[in-house]
């Protein structure tokens, strides 16, 4: 790309043309505080007016997050005028912000607070009436508190960009303006996927997950056998909550912490992932060989995606695997097989899932499977519990998951947390079942990576199987339209709701764009790749890398379930979808 010569505060620099002033300044080592820009300055809103700088020759101050650099531009970030303007913008935002910071769910991670510190916001400046506020706690996954909202619009952009459904938008005018689903409805009364991408980008405590830590506490208090399981993506990111760099593996320390929190058993949802593969690969082969249901088959592990399916593509429901998601399978197995083997009453067991996901909170409350899992906490909530218990992360040893009936997991299960992982795991097993031998290279590199839609055509025993992998509903839409039109060339499609898969889920640690060192132009891509690498390297390290080779899985089928797709497996491990789900339930 062409370079342009600019000056920042009198110092000459060369930067790529096409960058915004904000991006250029960061590249040159200056931090311009900003709130509405979230993806390394890629922002089309310019709404917060916190990133104002002076540009010689421009009329007035310019919003650096949208103003492009050009040859010879002279930028002044630290003039009196710019510094005071930035401070005033923040002070105005603070004057209409609910400042109960000590009790805020975003405490310690609030970007507004951080920016207020940087600009030196003065106390009690511009005080006055507050906008009327809405608190929406009806949805199982998400909470919205407009009293904390600064109307930066990041969540609106995120929802639109990731899923193309724009659940969130501005409404009302002037001082009464708020951000929310249309007509200020609850998330629960709108076609929201509850994926939590909006939570991930919210700079304040206006959007956050519906916390369930209290439910877990209550179960302990009642003396229940509290069993915890953790999703693969959690280990790829939890260390970030304790100050480790993005991409630090946290499996061993996480398990050690869970043991110290007093859980009865610490299991890995990867066991469920392996189980899912057994059932899903079986289902796929049935579809291919016996034509029991239409092709392509689509994965069903992502509850955000299932919400999108039911709301927007109910006609595609026959294509979607009936498998429950892995943690629901684990819950079902714990309360049946595990309880039976240990002679426990399932009523005394309380299953907690630690998930990178807010939609899983919704999923566990679905009427089709009300009793499998009792509480879902996010990666962030688990970190809170660890900190609350006074456990020092860096002093923790590495420990193993409990090896008790559901202990073993394969590398195939681990990579479930990243886009393409479910596909790859399924292919490893399907290949074995179709050919009678393991796929030599093990890895299917064709389905890895963070592209919007990945396609591969695999030759298995002379049969060409075309598969596709996508994440983010905006990307999935094209594949789903093909199915609707009857033009889909694929046999198997993996769809995950959050762009990049679970590693970028709505329950994962916040990535604060403002305070990261430069990690490339697109922060989202960079940190997703780093988190993904944690899972791929764990897969490489494991001896057993195919779900069907998991000894505990084999034992489960032998002792309890029989064959994949057996009657008992259908009852415990499969579910159904609601083709008539109402997008806009009546306001309560």
């Amino acid at each position, binding site marked *: 790309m062409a370079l342009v010569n600019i000056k920042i505060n009198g110092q000459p620099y060369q930067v790529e043309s096409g960058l915004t002033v904000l991006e250029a300044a960061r590249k040159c080592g200056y931090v311009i505080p900003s709130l509405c820009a979230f993806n390394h300055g890629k922002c*089309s*809103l310019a709404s917060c007016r916190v990133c104002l700088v002076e540009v010689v020759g421009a009329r007035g101050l310019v919003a650096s997050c949208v*103003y492009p650099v050009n040859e010879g531009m002279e930028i002044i970030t630290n003039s009196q005028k710019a510094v005071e*303007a930035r401070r005033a*913008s923040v002070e105005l935002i603070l004057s209409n912000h609910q400042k109960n910071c000590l009790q805020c769910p975003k405490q310690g991670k609030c970007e507004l607070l951080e920016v207020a510190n940087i600009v030196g916001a003065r106390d009690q400046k511009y005080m006055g009436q507050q906008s009327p506020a809405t608190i929406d706690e009806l949805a199982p996954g998400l909470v919205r508190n407009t009293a904390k909202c600064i*109307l930066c619009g990041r969540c609106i952009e995120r929802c639109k960009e990731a899923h193309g459904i724009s659940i969130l938008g*501005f409404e*009302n005018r002037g*001082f009464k*303006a708020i951000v929310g689903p249309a007509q200020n409805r609850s998330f629960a009364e709108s076609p929201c996927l509850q994926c939590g991408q909006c939570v991930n980008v919210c700079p304040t405590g206006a959007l956050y997950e519906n916390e369930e830590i209290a439910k877990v506490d209550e179960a302990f208090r009642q003396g229940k056998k509290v069993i915890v399981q953790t999703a693969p993506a959690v280990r790829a990111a939890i260390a970030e909550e304790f100050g480790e760099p993005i991409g630090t593996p946290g499996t061993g320390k996480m398990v050690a912490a869970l043991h110290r929190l007093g859980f009865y058993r610490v299991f890995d949802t990867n066991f469920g992932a392996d189980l899912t593969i057994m059932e899903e690969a079986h289902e796929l082969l049935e579809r291919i060989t016996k034509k029991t249901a239409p092709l392509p088959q689509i994965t069903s592990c992502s509850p955000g995606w299932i919400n999108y399916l039911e709301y927007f593509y109910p006609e595609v429901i026959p294509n979607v695997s009936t498998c429950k998601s892995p943690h629901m399978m684990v819950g079902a197995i714990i309360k049946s097989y595990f309880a039976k083997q240990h002679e426990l009453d399932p009523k005394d067991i309380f299953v907690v899932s630690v998930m990178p996901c807010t939609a899983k909170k919704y999923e566990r409350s679905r009427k089709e499977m009300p009793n499998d899992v009792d509480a879902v906490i996010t990666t962030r909530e688990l970190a809170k519990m660890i900190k609350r218990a006074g456990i020092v992360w860096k002093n923790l040893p590495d420990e193993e998951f409990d090896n008790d009936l559901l202990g073993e997991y394969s590398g195939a299960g681990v990579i479930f947390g990243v886009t393409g992982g479910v596909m790859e795991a399924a292919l490893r097993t399907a290949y074995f079942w179709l050919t009678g031998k393991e796929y030599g290279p093990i890895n299917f590199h064709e389905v890895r990576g963070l592209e919007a839609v990945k396609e591969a055509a695999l030759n298995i025993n002379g049969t060409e199987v075309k598969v596709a992998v996508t994440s983010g509903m905006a990307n999935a839409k094209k594949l789903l339209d093909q199915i609707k039109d009857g033009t889909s060339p694929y046999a198997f499609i993996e769809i995950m709701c959050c762009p990049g898969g679970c590693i970028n889920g709505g329950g994962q640690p916040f990535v604060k764009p403002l305070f990261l060192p430069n990690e490339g132009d697109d922060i989202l891509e960079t940190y997703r790749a780093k988190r993904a690498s944690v899972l791929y390297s764990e897969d490489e390290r494991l001896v057993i890398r195919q779900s069907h080779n998991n000894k505990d899985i084999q034992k489960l089928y032998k002792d309890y379930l029989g064959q994949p797709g057996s009657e008992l497996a259908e009852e415990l491990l499969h579910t159904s979808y609601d083709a008539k789900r109402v997008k806009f339930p009546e306001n309560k």
Partner: protein
Amino acid sequence: MEQIRNEKELQARFEKCGACLQKKFHCEPGHKAIVVCGGTGCLSADSQVIIDKFQELIKANGLEDKVTANIVGCFGFCSQGPFVKVFPEETLYVKVKVGDVEELFEKDIKNNEVVERLLFVDPQTKQHVQKQHDINFYKLQRRDIALHGNGEINPEDIDEAIGNGAFQGLNRALHMTREEVIDEVLKSGLRGRGGAGFPTGRKWSFVPKTDEPKYMICNGDEGDPGAFMDRSIIEGNPCAVIEGMMIAGYAIGAQNGYFYVRAEYPIAVKRLAKAIKELEEVGILGDHVLGTDFSFRCHIRLGAGAFVCGEETALINSIEGKRGMPRPRPPFPAVKGLWGHPSVVNNVETLACVPFILREGWEKFAAIGTADTKGTKVFALGGKVNNVGLVEVPMGTTLRQLIYDIGGGIPGGKKFKAIQTGGPSGGCLTEKDLDTPIDFGSLVAAGSMMGSGGAIVMDEDNCMVDVAKFYMTFICDESCGKCSPCRIGTKRCLDILTKICDGKGEPKDLDDLKELSNVIRNNSLCALGQTATNPILSTMKAFPEEYQAHVVDHKCPAHVCKNMMEYYIQPNKCIGCGLCMRNCPVGAISPSTEPAHLPNGNVNPGKFAHVIDPKKCVKCGSCLSGCRIGAIIKK
């Protein structure tokens, strides 16, 4: 309908319709043409019923061959409507009621007898004035550019527009290259009439000469309180605006034009839609306009009434079906506008001026006005002024001429205090600025701005802090809510102004208000926010003593702010009639023990002067307005 597919057919139609129009205005003896104002104001005062009645009478009397009656666009002198004008004498009747029609018909139409009682009475000379151009209100005006055809042609008949010269400018433009058309408009000195005064030709020249689709957009989202220039122009002569848009479309290489008009302007929308439909039918709009390679189509989009949609990028968002919120610039609309393509947004009045420039040549337009601004400007003159209405004056007319000569001065002999121009984005000008010639530069230099043409006159009874509060309330409701300085800052300004008007102000508030106003001006995203505090800053600058009185003495000199004024019955004037006591809704008035006096000074026996209990008084003012001898004052 007969087609107009080329220049020849246009000229033939022009000659035919022009002759018809001339025949109507200068009809032979025994013939008459009645026109009735069809502007929104007059229509709401039953002018449609008046015209129906005239037509009924023409039919009943069998005069269809000799007498015509139709509606025309706004006469502008809205405080005197509805208007009925009779040709060929050009007698103008004002404030005509439905009940007057029969008399008018009997006397004027049938017997050539002027109905004196319905003529305009000059407030100074008390004389009846028969002809429109003899009325002072019209004398200094020049209503042949932006208001061309208003009050003359039937806005619902494209033949009358064509006969009046419509599409002659377009025809000339189509014989020129695009660059020549832009050059012509540049040389004319036309500046955008929407408020900022950006040279129109330059705006057009920014559109890149690429093959991608381009769009012409007409901004008819007139939102300033009290402004109705654009509405009247569309209502009065929709073809002029369409022609202006077609010329602009030709100049920038657009094939589609969007009219963005407020849904609250149903008559404007109806007439515009009718004109577009008929122009499509005759072939002026569509493919191969007048036999050339230029193709153009017009579309109408209705605005939901948000003030911010007058900002061009918010308007573009609204046309795209999105929420009306401004976009950051760059990219400018001329490069990336509607649906990401180059677009030019011009105000209604700007486009209405374009046909004149192309029809008559740039020299004629440039000959009008000042060195800074050429042409004319339409103002919606309102507030405390005798002649309320729509005026078009050459640039360079002074504010004094506007208020006193055209506007007829301040009613009730009150003292002029300020004129607010530019609506909520503008500022107040005072006595000392009255000789300022009206043009973009001079008004800005004086501390206000031209704006789109709202001109609200204020007298000594207006409290300037209250005026600032009024505009701030408006802005607070109309801010789109996108950027924080505008959304929150304007509310904080309003908080402070409310505190001051409630009598709780302190001197520090004035510093805060000024600081905050400047923050909003510097930090906001779009022009709405950047100019939102102009009413505060300009009133603070022009009337510092009034602000001081509010925060230091806690007095409102104009007796407007209720917490700082009270109603008072002058005991020496009160005759003790008790009317105020009966009118008082809260029982705050009672007779005192002091005797009441008759107007001649003698004691009114058996009556007592009344007093108001300030603790009970809710300051509704019904005592003052009811008192027949003026014994009650505000203090």
